[in-house]
């Protein structure tokens, strides 16, 4: 069966520090991968998505970046965090077929102080 792992679960980082959040998927091949951010009291905002290794599409201009070094690995990074980067980050995967849902990791609560 397919599983998705996302870590860490919580993170407190000072302003200006780097960030690396990792997500891995097991049990499937060539998934579409996504990073979403959920700010307090708001819906989910798509940050990045990837349809294959090394292919990254950015939806929102910001100081975050994403990489996909392996088929089932998706990394969200920042060189210097801002206060506004605080939020709940969710990784997800889906297959590029109709009628299949997206599967989500458990999320990372990031607090920038």
């Amino acid at each position, binding site marked *: 069966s397919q599983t998705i792992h996302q870590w860490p679960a919580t993170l407190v980082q000072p302003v200006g520090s780097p960030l690396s959040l990792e997500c891995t998927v097991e049990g499937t091949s060539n998934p579409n991968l996504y990073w*979403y951010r959920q700010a307090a009291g708001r819906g*989910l905002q*798509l940050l990045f998505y990837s349809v294959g290794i090394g292919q990254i599409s950015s939806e929102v201009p910001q100081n975050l970046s994403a990489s996909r070094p392996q088929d089932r690995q998706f990394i969200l990074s920042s060189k210097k965090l801002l206060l506004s980067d605080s939020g709940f980050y969710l990784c997800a995967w889906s297959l590029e077929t109709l009628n299949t*849902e997206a599967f989500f990791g458990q999320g990372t609560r990031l607090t920038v102080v």
Partner: protein
Amino acid sequence: AQSVTQLDSHVSVSEGTPVLLRCNYSSSYSPSLFWYVQHPNKGLQLLLKYTSAATLVKGINGFEAEFKKSETSFHLTKPSAHMSDAAEYFCVAISGGSYIPTFGRGTSLIVHP
């Protein structure tokens, strides 16, 4: 392009009374539609999905949703609310145009004893 509109940011009900969470969509393609639930600081769990089979879809925990093409709606209902239903609910569309999950802004369900 596709979009999802959840008409209520908050819905408040008493335990044992019916629940109605509203969702409308727009899409250039016939979408697959989903409802997810998110408990605080958790990932998203799939409640149910519509994939062009039966228009009335039954999900977990007594929830169901009806796809109405003429109204472009996919409202989520439950006959009797339970305290454990208090959570954030997201309506999501995936269409053949992009396969990227598009989220509504979410509806916070509050259940009073």
